[in-house]
């Protein structure tokens, strides 16, 4: 039996996600077991537990539920609330963790985000089709109404053309002997970076980076800010590129590694005084 996308609802923590695409994948860690003098083997042995990922793209309609996990997940005190359960068309997992998240900012386009939830067990259930009509009162935020603000130590940016907000986190399972599912989760570093095409071609990039902050405010058609994406860190790369028939594109990348605690402050450079 084949089904269509209309029949496969995506639920995360029992909240329906307005996803334009989704995929759930599972993988083992099997590797062939060879004995000495053998070039062929029938034996495959597991080197680790089962791992799965739920990846999906969805439209942002207001305050984004998944953005809360950027600052909340894995922080002390740890609580179970920062776990994500997922159900895609009836295939479900009970406990997953947000490992990557990105939002695309493109002129005149609906705001779309991508998220990946990793889990460390097999998925339960069977595919169960759903039949329901689309809601009629949904408002999808559009970048036409967005505002972008930047704070830079050096230089000025007048226009922000397009960009991407990215988040990634290291999440590792901790297994005990004789168990195939992890007993605990180890959270590694989390990083946020924002990549933006701007209009000030310059090659200035000090070895220590250049403090900068970009805020993207998503608004509805009434100009009410519903969600904001802020990256306050240092510019760690610049890119200047063009191709025949196109214009010169200057791109900066700001990275932020401290996602909790006080926000870095962008201050003016102290001028060099010569005596």
């Amino acid at each position, binding site marked *: 039996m084949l089904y269509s996308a209309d029949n496969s*609802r*995506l639920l995360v923590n029992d909240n*329906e996600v307005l*996803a334009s695409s989704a995929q759930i994948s599972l993988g083992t860690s099997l590797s062939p077991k060879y004995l000495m003098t053998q070039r062929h083997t029938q034996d495959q042995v597991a080197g680790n537990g089962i791992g799965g990922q739920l990846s999906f793209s969805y439209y942002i309609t207001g305050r984004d539920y998944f953005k809360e996990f950027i600052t909340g997940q894995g922080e002390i005190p740890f609580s179970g609330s920062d776990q994500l359960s997922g159900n895609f068309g009836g295939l479900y997992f009970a406990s997953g963790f947000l490992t990557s998240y990105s939002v695309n900012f493109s*002129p005149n*386009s*609906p705001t779309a985000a991508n998220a990946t939830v990793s889990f460390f067990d097999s998925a339960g259930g069977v595919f169960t089709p759903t039949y329901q009509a689309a809601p009629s009162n949904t408002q*999808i935020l559009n*970048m036409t109404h967005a505002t972008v603000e930047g704070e830079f130590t050096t230089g000025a940016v007048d226009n922000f053309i397009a960009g991407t907000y990215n988040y990634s986190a290291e999440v590792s399972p901790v297994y005990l002997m004789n168990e195939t599912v992890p007993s605990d989760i180890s959270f590694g570093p989390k990083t946020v970076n924002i990549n933006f095409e701007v209009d000030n071609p310059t090659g200035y990039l000090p070895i220590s980076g250049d403090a900068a902050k970009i805020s993207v405010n998503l608004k509805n058609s009434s100009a009410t800010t519903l969600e904001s994406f802020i990256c306050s860190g240092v510019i760690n790369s610049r890119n200047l590129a063009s191709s025949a028939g196109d214009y010169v594109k200057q791109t900066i990348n700001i990275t932020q590694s401290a996602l909790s605690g006080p926000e870095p402050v962008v201050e003016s450079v102290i001028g060099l005084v010569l005596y």
Partner: protein
Amino acid sequence: MAQVFYDKTAVQVEYDGVSETLLATNCTINYNNNLQPVYVLGNKGSLGHVPAGPRVGDISFDFLTTITGETHGYPGNIINYLASGIKHSIGSSGSGVLVKCAGISGWGFLNSYGFNAQSNAVSTSNASFGFFGGFDDPAGFTLPLSGRITGSDAEVGSTTAAVATGVAHGRYTTLASLYTTITAPDAAEEIGKLFAADYSISFAHNPIYMLGQETPLLTLYTSATESINAIEDVYNSGLSYTGNATDYPLILESVDLNALSNMRVTMISGVQVGASLSVGLDDIVRTQKTITAAY
């Protein structure tokens, strides 16, 4: 009053203080938004339509190839003046021109322009402009198109006689630069007879959009492609592999031998890229060569 007859709907182009009413024979204005239906997993039907791009418009019209006008000292119609100026421009950003028809107006960028010439026939031209909006100065052109259908008095009514002889015609337009000359080692030189020719040029514009607004920040002019198709009676079987870049000056004349002006277009470094031959019942063998240039 929306019922406006065609005689009240002149096509007018204004640029840099010069306004010209073209002898248009038809005109079409299109305006499109970019609404796309949104579908999501697990739901039958669309959530609704959302903008996936800006609103853009365009206008296209055919007109008689008037050659007795003058724009900033250059003879010919204003479209020919604009095309010549853009293709030789070394600037990157386009400024646009004001285009009006039937009360609808916009700040447009020339997308394409072309004309034809054939024996014993009036030459006709065509042009199209793209509208992106985003102009605050002059005020009123923030959106790509504005206005409502209204009629206006035709401005060419009192100068009918001048118009009739100020239109390019095939009678005295030779376009001699397009004649194909064949010189074979063992035969006499042969020069083609030109029956008709079509000229066209298209421009690539690139509007740059930024976050937080619908209309472009600026519109860049990137490149132009020019083409001539000439109908003759000789076939160039010695078509060059590497091309032979040549300038092709085209001079359009009216039927009035006393006319003081003609309209000129010069294709710079054009190369022949194609030769074709066709014949049908009750006709001679006709050939067509295609010449292109890029700017």
